[in-house]
């Protein structure tokens, strides 16, 4: 398809995208493969959207995308981007790499967008003044889910957690949400089976695992999709599954079509040939945030754009009915969160029953009084 091209002589805004290939386990389900270009294609669409506007404002947005191999050197790749003059850098990397890069002396004057790591610590003790988070953190996702379940009065939860680090962190976020909004985790179970065993015995093992506790919703903490889907329809009692599978909280979903999201989905599908994922969305938001600030300030100057994004007038449309902007206490994108089943969006949080003195969006995640983020 033809991509929009601003006229010759336009002012150029360079944006970089950096990711690293991961050794992904084989997909558990045939209908759910892991695309290897998640994030990158969202950034591509963001560039097209920025440039469609750039045609009129004579601003030309260019993306330099770098994928480091599994055992490659991310630090070297980042330093090269900086040496090339890149200052807006989108990272789709694990939390440890985000921190490592953000703390490099070369990164001091960069504007880094974390579009891949959901870790709450990056929004708290390990926050950095040069890192803006366009991906939702686990606390936001857990809070969004908790609000809906509590609104439904499904307040007794059984938590089943996997053994990966992310599973534990997700389980922590669920426990925090339960405490914050008043749900009860009646029991916790650890998932200790390996995937291969489960293929043979899910039907017989899961009833045993889930027999006993008096719960309403089984919350799965399985970020890598190792077992969560197996829990459904196999519990001892007829119970709902939510969390990382079943009813999931996410900042984007292919079935989402409200507030003009259909158009975004169509544009993305035309460009990429697949559905848009949360990582695509997070990278898209980062590119659009830079583009929006450049349009509004009529400037391509780094400091002008950065100040505008941090300022009170910044808002970027993200197809969720309200504009998104960054929380000043931790640089986390403030936005609604979707609650979705595989083929449908069930609800959008914050739920209106949960009130807040400033913005109901701040009922999701770490609010100002709760944060332990201190920018140096």
């Amino acid at each position, binding site marked *: 398809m033809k991509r929009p091209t601003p006229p010759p002589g336009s002012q150029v805004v360079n944006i970089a995208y950096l990711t690293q290939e991961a050794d992904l386990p084989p997909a558990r389900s045939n209908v*759910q493969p892991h*695309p290897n270009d998640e994030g990158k294609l969202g950034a591509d669409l963001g560039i097209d959207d920025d440039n469609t506007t750039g045609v009129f404002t004579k601003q030309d947005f260019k993306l330099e995308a770098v994928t480091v191999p599994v055992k490659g050197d991310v630090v070297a790749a980042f330093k090269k981007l900086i040496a090339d003059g890149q200052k807006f850098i989108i990272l789709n990397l694990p939390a440890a790499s985000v921190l490592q890069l953000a703390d490099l002396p070369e990164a001091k004057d960069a504007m880094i967008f974390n579009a891949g790591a959901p870790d709450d610590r990056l929004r708290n003790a390990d926050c950095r003044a040069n890192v803006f988070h366009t991906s939702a953190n686990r606390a936001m996702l857990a809070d969004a889910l908790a609000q809906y379940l509590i609104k439904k009065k499904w307040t007794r939860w059984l938590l089943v957690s996997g053994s990966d680090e992310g599973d534990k962190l997700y389980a922590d976020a669920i426990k925090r949400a339960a405490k914050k909004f008043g749900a009860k985790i009646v029991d916790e179970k650890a998932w200790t089976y390996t995937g291969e065993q489960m293929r043979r015995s899910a039907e017989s093992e899961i009833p045993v695992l889930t027999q006993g506790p008096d719960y309403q919703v089984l919350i799965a903490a399985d970020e890598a999709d190792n077992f969560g889907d197996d829990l459904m329809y196999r519990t001892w009692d007829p119970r709902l599954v939510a969390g990382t599978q079943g009813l999931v909280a996410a900042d984007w*979903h292919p079935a989402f079509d409200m507030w*003009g999201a259909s158009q975004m989905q*169509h544009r993305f599908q035309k460009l990429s040939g697949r*559905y848009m994922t*949360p990582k695509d969305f997070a990278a898209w938001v980062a590119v659009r945030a830079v583009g929006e600030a450049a349009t509004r300030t009529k400037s391509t100057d780094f400091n002008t754009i950065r100040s505008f994004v941090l300022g009170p007038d910044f808002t970027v*449309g993200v197809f969720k*009915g309200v*504009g998104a902007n960054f929380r000043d206490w931790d640089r986390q994108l403030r936005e609604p969160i979707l609650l979705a089943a595989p083929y449908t969006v069930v609800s959008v949080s914050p739920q209106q029953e949960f009130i807040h003195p400033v913005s109901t969006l701040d009922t999701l995640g770490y609010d100002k009084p709760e944060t332990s983020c201190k920018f140096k």
Partner: protein
Amino acid sequence: MIHMGRFDMSRNLGRGGVAVAVVALSLVPSGVLAATAYVSNEKGNTITVIDTDKQVVTATIAVGHRPRGIVFSRDMKQLYICASDDDTIEVLDLATQKIVTNLPSGPDPELLLLDPNKPLLYVANEDDNMVTVIDLPSSTAVQQVPVGVEPEGLGISPDSKTLVNTSETTNMAHFIDTTTWEVKDNVLVDARPRFAVFTKDAKEVWVSAEVGGTVSVIDTGTHKVIKRITFDIPGVNKELIQAVGINLSADGKYAFVALGPSNRVVVIDQKTHEIIKYLLVGQRVWHMAFTPDEKQLYTTNGVSNDVSVIDIADLKVTKSIPVGREPWGVVIKP
């Protein structure tokens, strides 16, 4: 966690099939003086016909997929319907209530506007970042004007010389010269502009912003925003105030703005730009239409699946009429 497989584009994105079956539930011959409202139901794939004197539904007509923007032909004998998911504009014959032909619209047509002087139809193609100009006598697309991301609102100056289009993600009102079909100027407005309309004296263009929750009044001489109207409804969360449709009364007295999920229509003094009143209507109000005598205003309420009727003299909501699933556009003819 989330289904994200690659899929067969030809199957999933091909939306060529056009439903043209017409189901007239009841054909009530309308009286000579009665006005008739037509409501497009976005998820019902139907047009609801309402007798505005009796305020009852007289027919439901099956049309193409995702009907949104609708507009009458100049002789009022036909209705042009954006069938957004069929990538076409359907032409409904109002006497027979049958689709008689289709117009080439470009992909995902959302909103339509009929030129007041020339036989031209303007279409905003939301998926394609284009405004398509259709010559009606020849039923051909004669121009495609590249605009910003997700074009939607369309307004034409009374002399037909300037077409204004708003783009929802670019957040601009594009001023298009209709002789050269070039974008002459771009005016930044608040987030997600959805609707544009010229005042009768052509001195102002009013543009609503859905996410911004505001209306910008643009001076057509200077292309500057001379007034940014903001809304504050006691007891209603600011985030729910999302400005969409705008209707200006012909006498220059009132402007009505649909405020989306706040479930309110705001009444504004067209001259002073001051807010007069908020009216509670159905849920998620999108667009509106006056009856020909301008005594009533009909609003489409996308979530509550009904239309509200506002009495203009009293500025009161007097009736709600159930229509199809997710009503979007409404037009009324004598």
